[in-house]
């Protein structure tokens, strides 16, 4: 490699790094401004309630369906192994702990990202493309207060609630397979669950869900807010929002697990 090629390579790497750092900085500024708007009045309560309805209430059906099948598969997979060890009575705690500590928060957050996060990224992106965000600016209003803060609050409220609903539906799914199909004693399924699941587990699951909610709101709103002009820009922003949020949820899951449990 001659000197010129080396310099060009170095320049390209430097430019790429600078671009990435600038993007990261912009995302950080966006997040801190959003937090400031969330912590200071006026809060747009009507918009927040509307978003809770959209993110939370409208996701309940699909969350219940997904949860029921997750619980059923978990019970179906775990039961034979537990039976071999003579510990089938532990099916209830196994299902409940896996769901409350891990699967409930993660799977419900991924589902909410796909259903509501993508939609919010697209909606904000279209508002950017149609100059509605500029229109808010020119009215002397802060667009973050109208478009991002209500979503942040809504995700913070809805995602933990959906995770709780997910846990209940999945435990019932596990009950259907474990008790109704495979013949485990119902008292044993629920009784052992009560002995092994601690309040700390439930609280940990809720912390996880809340942090995922914050993450989804940040990534999806940010991607929509800085979308490129045109339909391709909105489409790319939506895809990036879902992919980035999903990856970050799994990465964040590791760190929150390490911290909380």
């Amino acid at each position, binding site marked *: 490699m001659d000197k010129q090629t080396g310099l060009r390579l170095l320049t390209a790497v430097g430019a790429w790094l600078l671009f990435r750092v600038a993007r990261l900085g*912009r995302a950080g500024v966006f997040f801190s401004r959003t937090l400031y708007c969330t912590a200071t009045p006026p809060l747009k309560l009507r918009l927040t309630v509307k978003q809770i309805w959209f993110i939370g209430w409208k996701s309940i059906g699909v969350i219940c369906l997904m949860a029921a099948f997750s619980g059923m598969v978990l019970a179906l997979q775990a039961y034979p192994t537990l039976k071999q060890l003579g510990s089938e009575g532990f099916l209830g705690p196994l299902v409940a702990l896996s769901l409350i500590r891990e699967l409930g928060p993660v799977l419900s957050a991924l589902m909410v990202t796909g259903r509501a996060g993508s939609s919010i990224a697209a909606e904000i992106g279209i508002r950017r493309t149609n100059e*509605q965000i*500029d*229109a808010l600016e*020119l*009215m002397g209003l802060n*667009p973050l207060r109208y478009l991002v803060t209500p979503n942040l609050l809504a995700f913070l409220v809805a995602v933990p609630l959906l995770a709780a609903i997910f846990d209940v539906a999945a435990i019932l799914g596990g009950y259907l397979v474990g008790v109704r199909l495979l013949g485990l004693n119902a008292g044993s399924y629920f009784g052992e669950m009560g002995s092994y699941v601690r309040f700390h587990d439930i609280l940990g699951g809720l912390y996880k869900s809340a942090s995922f909610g914050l993450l989804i709101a940040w990534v999806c709103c940010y991607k929509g*807010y800085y*979308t490129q002009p*045109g339909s391709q820009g909105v489409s790319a922003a939506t895809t990036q929002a879902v992919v980035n949020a999903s990856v970050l949820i799994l990465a964040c899951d590791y760190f929150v697990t390490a911290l909380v449990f």
Partner: protein
Amino acid sequence: MICVEEVWKSFGPQEVLRGVSLDVPPGEFMALVGLSGCGKSVLLKHVVRLMEPDRGRVLVGGRDLAALSRRELEATRSRIGYVFQNSALFDDLTVYENVAFPLRETTRLGEGEIRRKVMSELEVVGLESAEEKHPAALSGGMVRRVALARTLVRDPDIVLVDEPTTGLDPIVAGTILRLFASVHQRRHLTGILVSHDIPAIFGIVEKVAMLHEGRIVALETSAEARASRNPMLAQFVSGDPEGPIQDIQSRREPPGRTLPLEMENPVKHPGLK
């Protein structure tokens, strides 16, 4: 009232504005004409600091926009009405809610007073019977009229209008321009109108400026512009493909709509001010 001094603006390697200077005195409306993509909308966005110049400065009411604090900028912007090229109405709100929005969010007026003002503006634009409709249920011309009503309801001193008749049939376009003319006549607005509707705009504005290749190449009164001796403006007015403006085939896309946001300074992005 609006003073643009030697403004330069580039997007990457593309120089869009190259030392543009304009002066719009109070009570005067100026038409800004030029080829599609020549930077008219970019210039208009500088007047409200949605974009910032690389060089030069923009003064509104004698104050340099770049030197204003956030609060001062908001106060200046509250005196300016901006009609966007694609109207920028909020899809989730009805016509009434769209027009009432700036009053509800930026004033302490009671709902009764807001209703009176909104209905009065809707009457001016002839849409008082469409108050319950959503923008998606309106025709292109109606959407532009709602956008005008939303701009006027704040009673601005300055109005900036970006291509209000693009994509409309000649009759609807004529109606919109007549509406502008009557509003300007009654309120003596100061502003800039970006439009290709020649010669219809000559009856509305006091002056005509032509932007070409990043520079103002003609600045004449409406009467002079009708029979302009400036070869570029004369060609533009006549619509003759032959003349000093020869680069029609290689004309650029409108910069404000195609350039990525990344080209703007991320920290200075409007949403983060």
